[in-house]
């Protein structure tokens, strides 16, 4: 064995998760059917509980475009993507030599706000949001009923449309 290039590229957690998903990793309990090894499933289980679970290529590209102005090194950007800090105090340990950067006091807060806007929430943050908006859930439930009705109506229309076509065919 010979190591040709020890560092042939840095991956975000999302990219690793995407790779494992493309090989057939899922929450499906019938794992014996998959091509993945047990150790790969352990990595998948870790990543699917992390901030990477709902990220997409678009959201990460958006994030990188939005963060160009802060001129962070690549390792710090990736660390932010992997952890998705949602407040200044969570962000602070990721940024190295914070005192030496010529930032105002509000820069970290601005960055944290931007992160919350661009990157989807972590699974644990999602739960917090749900607790906070328990009342909204009730409203959503009624909304769902409405959409169900709408969908039913749509079906009717579609079936009407089908009939129409059949008539056309007959003629």
């Amino acid at each position, binding site marked *: *064995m*010979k*190591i*040709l*290039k*020890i*560092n*042939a*590229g*840095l*991956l*975000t*957690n999302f*990219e*690793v998760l995407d*790779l*494992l998903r493309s*090989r057939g990793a899922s929450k499906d309990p019938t794992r014996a059917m998959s091509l993945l*090894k*047990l*150790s*790969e499933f*352990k*990595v998948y*289980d*870790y990543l699917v509980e*992390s901030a990477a679970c709902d990220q997409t290529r678009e959201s990460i590209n958006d994030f990188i475009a939005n963060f160009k102005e802060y001129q962070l090194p690549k*390792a710090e950007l*990736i*660390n932010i993507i*992997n*952890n998705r*800090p*949602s*407040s200044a*105090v*969570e*962000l*602070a*340990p*990721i940024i*190295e030599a914070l005192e030496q950067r010529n930032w105002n006091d509000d820069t970290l807060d601005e960055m944290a706000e931007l992160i919350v806007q661009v990157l989807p929430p972590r699974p*644990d943050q999602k739960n*917090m949001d749900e607790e906070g908006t328990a009342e909204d859930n009730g409203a959503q439930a009624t909304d769902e009923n409405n959409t169900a009705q709408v969908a039913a109506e749509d079906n009717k229309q579609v079936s009407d449309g089908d009939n129409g076509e059949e008539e056309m065919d007959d003629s």
Partner: protein
Amino acid sequence: MFFLTEIEHRLRLPPKLLDRPLEDAIKGELESIFLDKVIAKTGLCVSMYDIKSIDGGFVLPVEGAPTYTVVFRMVMFRPYVGEIIAAKLKNSNKKGLQLSLGFFDDIYIPAFALPDPSHIEPHDDDPKQVKWVWTYNDLELSYDDENVIRFQVTSVDYPPIPLEQEEGSKPFAPMVVTGLLNSDGLGPISWWV
């Protein structure tokens, strides 16, 4: 946290695999050799990324199988110093905490790297374990098994393989990550939000 590493490896392909497509057969062999293993100073092999080239296929004298030289890329888990990683609590004793990522368990937070002032309390259920508590103003903050704990990597070591191991000692860990928790924003996420 995850890197790609390009590796060249010579492997002998057992004849029983020769009825399968060459790339699949080689990939399977490489996976059984490398996956879930630590390469010193390179990290833990997580998954095969791709195969870049397959050369050779000669049957060497006195061997009953072809030998190939394969260049491939592997996804490696290799934390770097200064990185922030989310982990879960696995063990705690007088020396400090042990954290786990599920696929990697050798992460240690020594007692001096816990937030100051921390002290030990007896664990409720397990007499072998202890509970570390951080006193912040008047708050008593402890680590529990459920919450995600964020730590900062301070060093990654690859200890040499011991020639002899004492009976009853811990299994040998080829990669040991040491971290700290005594900085703002680290520790269980619920402490800060």
